[in-house]
């Protein structure tokens, strides 16, 4: 019991954080069709900025160096991380979306992410280079007098609350006319333009809001683990979030939850305890990515729209004649 409960709580925290990630990518790709192949860069941006807002100043004597170091409370750090990621989303979006056809969008996001990765991991004054940020004491733990297990339970609550807020953000965008316009742009950008939609602006909004959720999740990771370094945001991590979204069902936030559970919890955990038959430390991540890839291919084969596909929005008007009472809108899942 003493071991199982904290372990399960840790799983729940990762599950919650991955839900936030998958919703973020859903806003970008599932709603607006933006091919963001550097999603993890926004996660990192959120984690780093939350880190340097919450950590004290880095000191060169001790071999730590980073910008800011403001010692601010975690909620402010989380907002800072979210905001920084949102701004980065607009910047990368401006490069990738502006005047580029969608097939180039993917490679441009990947290229931009690679440049940022190289910069952050080699330019130590920013976020301590390849060593990354470390030493953030668990937020709220000291004030509340929590031990490390209790802190894990607290983080279930914290990430749960934040997740619910993110759910509302993602759902409100999806069910609004803004979400409808995003989906129209996903279907046919030129046709949307002919109806006066500023498709660049709308896709930048999607890019940026998706990045905000990525940043929020990154900040929660930073707070939970207390450290963050380039080893944690290799481009393979972007693939995990993509796989979760495609497996679960793009365009549907419940699908995203299912996908994040299958990919980020089940497969991740199933492979974590592979007996170390070899001394190769890369075995587990390799097996994990192979399993994720195989799941992705399987789903694309048998159910290409994902486990829970996009909801079909139905409109009813009864009785069916002009001048009758206002239209009622109802949603029902597509079978």
């Amino acid at each position, binding site marked *: 019991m003493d071991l199982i409960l904290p372990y399960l709580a840790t799983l729940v925290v990762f599950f919650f954080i991955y839900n936030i990630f998958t919703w973020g990518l859903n806003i970008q790709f599932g709603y607006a069709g933006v091919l963001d192949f550097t999603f993890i860069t926004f996660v990192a941006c959120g984690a780093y900025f939350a880190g340097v807002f919450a950590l004290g100043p880095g000191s060169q004597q001790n071999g730590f160096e980073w910008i800011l170091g403001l010692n601010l409370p975690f909620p402010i750090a989380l907002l800072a991380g979210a905001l920084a990621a949102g701004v980065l989303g607009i910047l990368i979006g401006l490069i990738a979306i502006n005047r580029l056809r969608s097939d180039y969008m993917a490679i441009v996001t990947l290229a931009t992410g690679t440049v940022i990765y190289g910069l952050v991991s080699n330019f130590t004054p920013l976020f301590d280079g390849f060593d990354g940020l470390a030493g953030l004491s668990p937020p709220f733990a000291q004030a509340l007098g929590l031990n490390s297990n209790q802190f894990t339970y607290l983080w279930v609550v914290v990430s749960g609350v934040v997740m619910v807020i993110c759910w509302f*953000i993602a759902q*409100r*965008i999806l*069910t*609004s*006319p*803004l*979400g*409808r*316009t995003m*989906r*129209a742009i*996903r*279907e*046919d950008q*030129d*046709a*949307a*333009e*002919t*109806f*006066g*939609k*500023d*498709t660049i602006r*709308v896709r930048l*909004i999607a890019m940026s*809001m998706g990045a905000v959720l990525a940043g929020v999740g990154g900040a929660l990771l930073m707070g939970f683990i207390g450290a963050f370094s380039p080893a944690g945001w290799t481009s393979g991590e972007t693939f995990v979030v993509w796989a979760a979204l495609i497996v679960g069902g793009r*365009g549907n936030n419940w699908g995203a939850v299912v996908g994040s559970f299958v990919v980020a919890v089940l497969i991740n955990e199933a492979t974590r305890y592979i007996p170390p038959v070899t001394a190769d430390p890369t075995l587990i991540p390799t097996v994990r990515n192979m399993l994720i890839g195989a799941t992705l291919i399987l789903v694309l084969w048998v159910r290409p729209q994902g486990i829970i596909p*996009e909801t*079909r*929005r*139905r*409109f009813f*008007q009864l009785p*069916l004649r*002009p001048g009758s009472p*206002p*239209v009622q*809108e109802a949603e029902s899942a597509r079978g």
Partner: protein
Amino acid sequence: MPAAEAILTVSHVSHSFGGFRAVDDCSFEIAAGSISALIGPNGAGKSTLVGLIGGAMRTQTGSIHFAGRNISRMSAFKVARLGLLRTYQVSREFAGLTVMENLLVPPPNQRGESLFNALFRPSLGRVQDRELADRAFEVLETFGLLALRDEYAGNLSGGEKRLLELARAVMAEPKFMLLDEPMAGINPALIARLDGHIRRLRDDHGITFLLVEHNLDVVERICDRVVVMAFGRTLAEGQMSELRENPEVVRAYLGGGLDERAAG
């Protein structure tokens, strides 16, 4: 014809793809409140011109003015916001949206399209959607698409997609509709009804029409004026009955079609 004010002026517009001049020094004016047609053989450059007017491509030479504004280099969505709506020769439905949703995308000035309102005042969008959906119901009924309202647009037949294209255009409430072969693939009974819709939209809402159309009977029935294009150039302008007599036009385009019609 009374000299009404020109709402659209195309002057000396040329456009080349590589070395090929698809549109070559084209000039004409469209009077506000008129129903005009742009006709010409396949490859005459009609669709290219539609694209240039609608802002899908930047005009290389010459200029295009709409409602007193130079739109030659304006991007498509800004042209649309001035009230000029163009449709495509090939249906461009939002395949993954339902028919109803396809009609709810076009209306301008939707308050629920701002991020702030979407996040913090979702009821604004919902209330407006309800009004728009009411209007969309009427439009769908007019175009005979009401039963298909919850179907994904991608699942419609070719003819239904053409109707959807027009229904969407109506929802956008434009001042000017530039329709690229709107009747292609629609059955004759329906064409007769669409004629009526177009005339009614002009008469009741003052919408100006420029149709690219191959069906010359339709053109003769509803169009006040016709511009004939061939090989990228404007060949002649006038009323359909006059143009049928114009030897140059007959040679370039009407020839076979006219004779068949005269015989039949």
